[in-house]
């Protein structure tokens, strides 16, 4: 649906439900949500005097409301996307207020994942800003009895240059509201050279709140009369309650009752896992009560899941012929044998997201409607699962989006919001579900465990004449289809199908793996294990041939060209291939850029001091990274410096983009050093930051330098693409410093240093 349409219908709805706002305003609603939010889901933009489209509204006092329909989990998207509209509107940013949208299909896609918020909505928000600007100009021109072409705008004001007359946006709001909304073809977008904000950026509109404790996360949402719930989930995925004794739990001061939540019906998708909720007057009492529950479980089939055995299975599968995903050359030809054949196994375990804010949600079921407040990346997904779990139409579900204390993909899965909804319906009062860190670690949708088998036959210069790569991992699609065992095209396309090497013979395969836990998206997803295997194996081949890894990589990538995926299923992150082609020249450029900026040519690795390199395209963004490490004799690793070059097309907010790549290096550090979730007898063995550590300030790169390519290519992703090349470059640096190759992540489980 076009955001330009449908405004009048919403106005009509506003009339019907307007009274709802008064009811809720009397109660405690997080301050961030106070503006414009009520049970009818109307925004301040909707209610403004001049409201030409979904994303903007202008009041007579000149206040501009811009809707942020994507979720803020730290990428600054709540600022950057409205900034695009403000630029085309020629608005004064100081007079802009951000309206956080509820989940509502009228906004189009709201699932803030896949690093595509800017990419998917850049044009739309420019058009929405330009439409409002044109209407303001038209209103002024009418008032002055001059032609539109004689008028222009200057920061929140329409100007008639010839006579020096000026009218502020607020003064024009009423008149503009009476004009028809222009068609997209009538709009004249700004020239990039006239951009005021795009490409320059702005700090987060929430910055001061984030530094003063005033920012409101899902964890901070409250309603009068709410109770707190802590849920004991089945310890094994798919388990059910056999018996429950809650007598001791009910004796805990502050505990009110327990409620059983039904197990999910396979496939699990985003349904609650089931279990026993302890309902209490405060979070602490709920936690304490939960410890006193006596439950026996029917663990079900996944009780046999053991990570050690599973790893062996994956590896065996990786050594057998798999499903052909893509081939170059004669795919029926036997793979060469002999001493010029190199092979290696790579492995990445299950990874957990562990955003700093554990899963939490507040829900209120009242008068047949369900209202939720949650830190969610996916408010429409939350609406859908709530509607189905509670048994009401989607239209009767309102999902407010709070700030997210981290997301990394976990909060795209709204299972925890559905839990709050189910409990609120049962208890007929507002319920806040709070997960502990242990719940978060043990009941995640993990990034898939993956085994990669790599094989190359090389010529006398060490360059592959034949290349085979085979990955095996339980697919994300298994949460939607219990029989899914092969990688699906969108995830195989994440750095596997699209091997960018210019080699005569390539075979890319995938083997089957059954999931025994929930598998889900985690920052950069399948790119993590795919880039790790390809980029480290390439480094192995370079060293084996005594060639410089950067020079070797450029040789394998070959000349600048657009990769041809004719007859290959390559979804390209959902983007049109003509608009976002895979251009090896852009990968070469960032490689050359990072080599130059890091001083690669001058930096020679020595014992205990190494430089590693990797390059990868993901989420349509090209990244090359150099990591410097120092490794002590007992294997203690420091990371003095990281250099990373990025071509993400047009970048709206450069400092926020730099921050994403700085953060990606830290996220990648955690993965390499200690990222590992394991299961025994179907039970996840890790529980908190003691056994699933996140990198700390003394373990991360001292300095991450980010170089952003000036580009007029359409905007691509920045939240995720930094992780995959960092992980590989870090491992390659460890090799450069020690001669030891980390092929099985993480470092903490390896015996690399005895």
């Amino acid at each position, binding site marked *: 649906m076009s955001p330009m349409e449908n405004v009048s219908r919403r106005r009509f709805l506003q009339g019907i439900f307007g009274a709802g706002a008064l009811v809720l305003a009397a109660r405690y609603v997080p301050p961030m949500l106070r503006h414009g939010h009520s049970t009818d889901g109307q925004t301040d933009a909707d209610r403004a005097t001049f409201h030409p489209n979904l994303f903007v509204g202008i009041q007579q006092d000149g206040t501009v409301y811009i809707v942020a329909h994507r979720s*803020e*989990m*730290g990428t600054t998207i709540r600022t950057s996307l409205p900034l695009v509209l403000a630029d085309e509107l020629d608005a004064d940013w100081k007079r802009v207020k951000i309206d956080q949208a509820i989940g509502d299909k009228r906004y189009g896609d709201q699932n803030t994942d896949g690093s595509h918020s800017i990419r998917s909505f850049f044009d739309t928000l420019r058009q929405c800003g330009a439409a409002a600007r044109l209407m303001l100009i038209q209103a002024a021109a009418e008032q002055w009895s001059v032609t539109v072409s004689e008028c222009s705008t200057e920061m929140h004001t329409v100007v008639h240059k010839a006579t020096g007359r000026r009218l502020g946006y607020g003064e024009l709001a009423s008149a503009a509201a009476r004009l028809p909304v222009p068609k997209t073809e009538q709009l004249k977008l700004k020239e990039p050279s006239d951009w005021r904000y795009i490409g320059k950026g702005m*700090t*987060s509109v929430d*910055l*001061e*709140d*984030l*530094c*003063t*404790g*005033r*920012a*409101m*996360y899902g*964890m*901070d949402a*409250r309603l009068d009369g709410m109770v*707190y719930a802590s849920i004991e989930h089945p310890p094994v995925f798919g388990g059910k309650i056999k018996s429950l004794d809650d007598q001791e739990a009910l004796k805990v*001061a*502050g505990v009110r009752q327990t409620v059983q939540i039904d197990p999910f019906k396979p496939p699990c998708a985003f349904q609650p896992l089931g279990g026993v909720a302890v309902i209490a007057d*405060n*979070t*602490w*009492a709920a*936690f304490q009560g939960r410890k006193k529950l006596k439950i026996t479980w029917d663990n079900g089939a996944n009780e046999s899941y053991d990570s050690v055995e599973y790893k062996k299975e994956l590896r065996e599968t990786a050594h057998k012929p798999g499903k052909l995903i893509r081939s170059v050359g004669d795919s029926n030809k036997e793979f060469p044998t002999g001493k010029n054949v190199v092979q290696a196994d790579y492995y990445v375990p299950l990874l957990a997201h*562990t*955003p*700093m*804010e*554990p899963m939490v949600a507040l829900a209120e079921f009242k008068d047949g409607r369900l209202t939720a407040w949650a830190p969610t990346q996916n408010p429409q997904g939350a609406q859908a699962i709530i509607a189905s779990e509670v048994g009401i139409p989607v239209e009767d579900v309102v999902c407010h989006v709070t*700030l*997210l*204390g*981290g*997301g*990394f993909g976990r909060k795209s899965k709204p299972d925890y919001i559905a839990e709050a909804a189910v409990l609120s319906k049962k208890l007929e009062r507002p319920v806040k579900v*709070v997960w502990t*860190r*242990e719940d978060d670690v043990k009941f995640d949708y993990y990034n898939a465990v993956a085994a990669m088998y790599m094989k190359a036959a090389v010529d006398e210069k060490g360059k592959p004449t034949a290349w085979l790569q085979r990955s095996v991992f339980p697919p994300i699609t298994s949460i939607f289809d219990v029989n899914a065992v092969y990688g699906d095209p969108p995830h195989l396309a994440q750095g596997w199908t699209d091997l960018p090497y210019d080699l005569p013979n390539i075979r890319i395969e995938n083997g089957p793996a059954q999931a025994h836990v929930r598998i889900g998206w985690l920052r950069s997803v399948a790119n993590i294990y795919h880039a790790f295997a390809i980029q480290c194996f390439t480094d192995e081949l370079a060293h084996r041939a005594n060639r410089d890894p950067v020079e070797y990589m450029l040789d394998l990538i070959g000349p600048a060209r657009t990769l041809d995926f004719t007859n290959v299923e390559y979804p390209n992150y959902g983007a049109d291939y003509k608009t976002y082609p895979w251009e090896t020249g852009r990968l070469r450029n960032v490689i050359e850029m990072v080599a130059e900026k890091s001083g690669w040519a001058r930096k020679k690795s020595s014992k205990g001091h190494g430089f590693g390199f990797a390059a990868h395209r993901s989420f349509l963004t090209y990244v090359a990274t150099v990591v410097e490490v120092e490794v002590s004799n007992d294997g203690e690793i420091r990371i003095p410096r990281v250099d990373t070059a990025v071509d993400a097309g047009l970048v709206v907010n450069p*400092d926020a983009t730099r*921050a*994403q790549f*700085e*953060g*990606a290096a*830290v*996220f990648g*550090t955690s993965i390499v050093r200690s990222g590992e979730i394991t299961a025994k007898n179907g039970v996840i063995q890790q529980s*908190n*930051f003691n056994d699933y550590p*996140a*990198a*700390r*300030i*003394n373990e*991360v790169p*001292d*300095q991450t330098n980010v170089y952003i390519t000036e580009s007029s290519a359409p905007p691509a992703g920045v939240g995720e693409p930094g992780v995959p090349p960092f992980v590989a470059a870090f491992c390659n640096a460890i090799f450069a410093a020690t001669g030891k190759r980390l092929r099985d992540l993480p470092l903490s489980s390896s015996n690399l240093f005895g």
Partner: protein
Amino acid sequence: MKLKVNGIDHAFDGDPDMPLLWYLRDILGQTGTKFGCGIALCGACTVHKNGEAIRSCVTPMSAVADSNIRTIEDLGANGLHPVQEAWMEVNVPQCGYCQSGQIMQAVSLLKNNPHPSDQEIDDAMAGNICRCGTYQRIRQAIKLAAGKNA
């Protein structure tokens, strides 16, 4: 028992084992102090007890009787603290969830050591996890605040 929170006297007669964190958040409704791990591993819950940084998630109410507790809400109550100013200048936060704890820890560090070395910053801040990975900017902001004699 009695205690002072951000300069205001409070009386508490609930479970003495309840951690200060949940008293602040659920009873007083002061939500600037965050829950991250519950076992003093992440530092998101850092507050000051009589001027020193503590982890409120493992500090029972019985241990704060007659104490003076200060939280992030009070730090900038009368104008931003220099550490908060530095945080804004460097644009430290991403999601921001850990930053209350980071800031309270940094304030405590600079109080005891106005000009910390890189190593001293790492040592003092190693108990505070930031999953977004803002550490580089945290270091930078602490140095900036130190320069301003926070």
